[in-house]
């Protein structure tokens, strides 16, 4: 498999062994997002704690490995972090995905999520990678208002 491959080991790992999958109680907000072009789906719950802490991100869904692995990576990055920190990551991830392969990813901010860099060249796949992340952003808004 070539270097710039979309299918980094890490993505496959997360797809085959998703972290934190399953919907859990308690939660502050639940959202359901669908990608109408390819049918990928995700249900996501967010539980916030004191001091802007993200206590839990739980989810369930179906779709291609990219969309499902993205949810798993998100779970890892967000759980235990703060709302503010994760919003920064979401922003950087969105910038990377919408950069059409021309944006240099900031690895310090993205962590494992940098494995998705190869996706950015395929507009049709960008939505797969973003599905869970957009759902998360949406769920945050609903939790805090």
């Amino acid at each position, binding site marked *: *498999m*070539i*270097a*710039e*491959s*979309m*299918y980094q080991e890490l993505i*496959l790992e997360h797809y*085959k062994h998703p972290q934190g999958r399953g919907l859990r109680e308690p939660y502050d907000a639940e959202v359901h997002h669908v990608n109408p*072009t*390819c*049918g*990928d789906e995700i249900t996501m719950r967010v539980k916030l704690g004191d001091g802007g802490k993200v206590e839990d991100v739980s989810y369930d869904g179906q*779709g*291609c*490995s*990219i969309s499902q692995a993205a949810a798993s990576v998100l779970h890892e990055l967000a759980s235990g972090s703060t709302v503010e920190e994760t919003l920064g990551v979401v922003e950087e991830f969105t910038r990377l995905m919408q950069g059409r392969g021309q944006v240099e990813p900031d690895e310090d901010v993205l962590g494992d999520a940098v494995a998705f860099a190869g996706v950015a060249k*395929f507009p*049709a*796949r960008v939505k*797969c990678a973003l599905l869970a992340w957009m759902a998360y952003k949406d769920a945050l808004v609903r939790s805090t208002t």
Partner: protein
Amino acid sequence: MTAQVSGGVTALDVDRIRNDFPVLSRELPGGRPLVYLDSGNSSQKPVQVVETMREHLSMHYSNVGRAMHVLGAESTEAYENARDKVAAFVGAPSRDEIVFTKNASEALNLVAYAFGNPAGSDERFRMGPGDEIVISEMEHHSNIVPWQLLAQRTGATLRWFPVTDDGRLDLSGIGDLVNERTKIVSIAHQSNVLGTVNPVADVLARVRDVGALLMLDASQAVPHHPADFAALGVDFVAFTGHKMLGPSGIGVLWGRRELLDAMPPFLGGGEMIEAVWMDRSTYAPVPHKFEAGTPPIVEAIGLGAAVDYLNAVDMRAVEAHERALTAYALDALREIPGLRVIGPTTLESRGGTVSFTLEGIHPHDVGQILDDSFGVAVRVGHHCARPLHLRFGIPATTRASFYLYNTTGEIDALVRGLHYVQKVFA
């Protein structure tokens, strides 16, 4: 491959043909060879087409029709010759019935916009509440959305043929579906997902009974089979240059002269007029009436070169070659566990497009691993035919589509790739 095939047609020489397509020998990043099985999406272009365009753009280019100098004459001649070539290629009764558009989608929209226009006067193109438009469940979005928009504009009703489990047009309800309220029926000649070739004559008979019009979306048919529009007997046909070795930016609408004459203009502008005053205009005869503004000049010329190329190979040989590849592929795919072909599994009335699902693995993943690991380019998704996928209860399929430059070796590569995909996701 230089054996005789049936009917006195010499089989095509696929090695020689491949030499005309430099990209087919390209090495992809990581040293993978390219295995291009996505011609149903868009075909590659032979050097003959590319060089014709380069030469014209470099040394003979100018605007057409309006210019009165050497370059204008050369461009006009080349552009209009391309029209002659296309007309002859599809057996159009008259060259003036060939309207150049930017793609098949524009051709379909052009006809849809002819209906329900308050400025038009011909009864056949009047449309309002109570009138009906009929399409099918296997259509490409480009043969669905224009009719949805027309129905919204006019209040007419959109109806459709269902599709059977084995991927055929379900004609059982045609008597009710196509009736005296029907103004136009528009269906694919060949499905871009199933490969199904639809029974035009059967549909046409009913359409004529009720006095409606019949349009064919032949985007997937004209590139792959000998065409004879005069014999087909329908009213309109749309097809597109980029799927038949031509460049992007050029499509074709063919229509019966008498209907094209009766239709109101679609796009207004230079070249489509006879005389213009501030408050009114008269229009040029067809085909120019429907070619507003500077046309895709070099693109039409490139399409003309593509048609020359296909003629030299012989469309009967192209058809036979693809038929052989399809037989080979259907056999080979049958061996893969968990693989389900969506569409006809026999060669009867079907072309060289094979779509399938692999149990437990999303087509997006199939396609991307095939590309990543083996350079096998297939298309994955709903192929702009989402309703058809909804009909089969699946979000997406993987599609391999063949053309004159493909080989059985490439199908072997696909099969190897699919086995590998199953290993990765095991």
